[in-house]
């Protein structure tokens, strides 16, 4: 009787999981295993694959550009993620506070997220243009001269981060707003009766209650941003002199531009390891503070 119950409970759970596990196994795990095999091969795309032992891995560890792209990618994340979280949290709080026009504002803020990167890049060509770009018009007024956003090796990565924040803020705003709106109202009423002001309510109620959302968001944002590619590919192609070269950019280049699928596969594995390490670190940090 008891065993029967346990069996049924497990069966039910796996039935719920079955479709997800099926697609996951077929279109993610299987290609992932093929990828691992590829790291010990060369060719295989147009010509038959040849086994080369650990040559790709040796090359990876000897290649200074690998470390540079990892550092660039992490640097980019450290700029883009906190920025987009702060901006989106502010927008979400503002949206939650207003009632008239909420839908209109939501739609407008979400609009940039829907832009294909080619179009976003085109827009930013206008925004950043040396002579007429809206930001450089501002810069002329504020600091007296235009800023070479994409041509300066120090500014190029922050500029990429800015574009990505612009593109991503709509999504994070909606996510945080959904989180805020799903919080139990009773607690707020109780807090208000206890005389807690808006700031207190935000720091002592909203932020702690949103912890699961933040946990998910931090992990998710790290994973997504560590794969930054489109905006770099279109705006700078890794330049000036590799100052915006991300790991995914390097993977793409090895796979497609240089026709070195084995090396590209190896770089991909390096990236997977970096992502895993960083997300594990985050999970640990969140758990510690709990």
């Amino acid at each position, binding site marked *: 009787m008891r065993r029967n119950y346990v069996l049924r409970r497990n069966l039910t759970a796996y039935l719920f999981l079955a479709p997800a596990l099926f697609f996951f196994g077929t279109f993610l795990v299987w290609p992932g295993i093929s990828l691992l095999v590829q790291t010990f091969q060369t060719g295989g795309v147009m010509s038959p694959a040849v086994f080369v032992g650990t040559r790709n891995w040796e090359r990876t560890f000897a290649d200074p550009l690998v470390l540079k792209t990892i550092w660039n990618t992490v640097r980019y994340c450290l700029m883009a993620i906190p920025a987009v979280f702060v901006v989106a949290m502010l927008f979400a709080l503002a949206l939650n506070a207003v009632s008239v026009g909420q839908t209109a504002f939501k739609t407008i803020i979400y609009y940039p997220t829907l832009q294909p990167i080619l179009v976003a890049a085109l827009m930013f060509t206008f925004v950043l243009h040396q002579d007429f770009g809206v930001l450089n018009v501002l810069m002329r007024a504020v600091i007296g001269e235009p800023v070479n956003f*994409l041509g300066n090796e120090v500014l190029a990565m922050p500029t990429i981060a800015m574009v990505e924040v612009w593109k991503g803020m709509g999504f994070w705003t909606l996510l945080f707003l959904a989180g805020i709106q799903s919080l139990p109202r009773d607690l707020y009423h109780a807090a208000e009766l206890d005389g807690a002001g808006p700031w207190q309510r935000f720091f002592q109620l909203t932020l702690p209650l949103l912890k699961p959302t933040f946990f998910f968001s931090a992990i998710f944002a790290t994973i997504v941003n560590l794969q930054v590619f489109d905006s770099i590919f279109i705006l700078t192609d890794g330049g000036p002199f590799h100052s915006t070269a991300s790991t995914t950019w390097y993977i793409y280049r090895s796979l497609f531009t240089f026709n070195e699928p084995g090396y590209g596969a190896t770089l991909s594995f390096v990236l997977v390891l970096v992502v895993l390490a960083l997300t594990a670190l985050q999970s640990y940090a969140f758990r510690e503070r709990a």
Partner: protein
Amino acid sequence: MNMRTCFSSMTGAGALAVAAVAGFGLWTTPVQGGGHVSGDITMIKGPHSADEARFNAMIIEDFKAVEPGVNVEFTTYDWANMNAELTAGFASGNPADVLYLVDLIYPNYAEQGALQDMSDLVSAEEWAGERALIPEFAWDLSRQGGGIWGVPVLGAVYNIFVNEDLLAEAGVLDTWNSSYADMMDAAKKTTGDGVYGFSVRSRTGDFAFWDWLPYVHNAGADLLNDDWSGCGLWGAEAATQFLIDMHEAGVTPPIGSMSTQEQFDLFKGGKIAIYHGETPQIGELNANPPPFNWDVAYAPPGEQGQTVMGNFGILSIASASPNKDAAWEYIKHWASGPQVGRFAEQVNLQVVREDIIPGMFADNEAMRKVQQEFVPRVKGIQPHPQILKILQSIWPVAERAYRGGMTGEQVIQEMCAITDEILG
């Protein structure tokens, strides 16, 4: 829309196409001069114009008249992603039969066995006359590793555009490209009041190396040495130093601040005196004439010559193509004088076959000048299978040098170290 009906109608269309093909083979009677091949073929090409598909439809329509049994489908690849798209096509086992490839990328595909060696086809007796019309230097570019991988059809020349009014105002119109010193002088004299004297591309994504290579070639150097066994850039130190000096002299737009497209806008606005561009931009200048006199030009003579950079495009056949006969017929048609000539005029590119050059660009003075005066000076790249990798790997060195703090000598040293490592 219902997904299932959508998909089944797709397969239905496929079956119809197969039936149609079979039908053509049985019922059409050969037309004189052709008609001996049949089937479906696909051609893929990067667009040289927003009207690319329309221009190719004209070529296909004319082909139908000679080879009614062949259906040609035309598709394009996106230049920025051409490697990804072409690689996917080859890997699918079902690539386009006819491929327009540039000299920068075809050698790698040839090395990997994705292309058909066309040595026998182009050597055939019946095509000898046509083959002879394409100069040997062009054939050299499609020859590699003992094979011939395509028929050279088009060339894209990287030329300089000058604003003659600005140069005349500064009194340097006749002297500006007599020597590198004169060019520097002209750039300095024309700079000021929102005008930049000089511009070259600097971004890797803009293929900036095209603007640097003529200066390298003029110094007698090249990317690879004569037998392609190592770096051949030795000798290009002074030429590279010259371009570094140009950037340090403050006569260029802030380095990296503009794409080549934005620089061209600046030129059209009368704000750049000496602009490095590409001949298809002539079409734009003819269509929307700027309010000043302009001309096409090339770089001053170096120690070892006065060359012009050019890219070549060849028509290749995929080794996986099931219908190589039809593909070859279509390539011969595409490469024939009337077809390639009309297309080149439509998109402002150069042709390589010599018989049609005299009659080309009758009402396009700048293009005529490029075709007749520049093309003979063209020195392209060495079609080594690793050439794209070499160019993209060494270019960041120049990007850094243009921003100061590096000499031409150091640049060449670093570039050669990278090149030699890639070549092993």
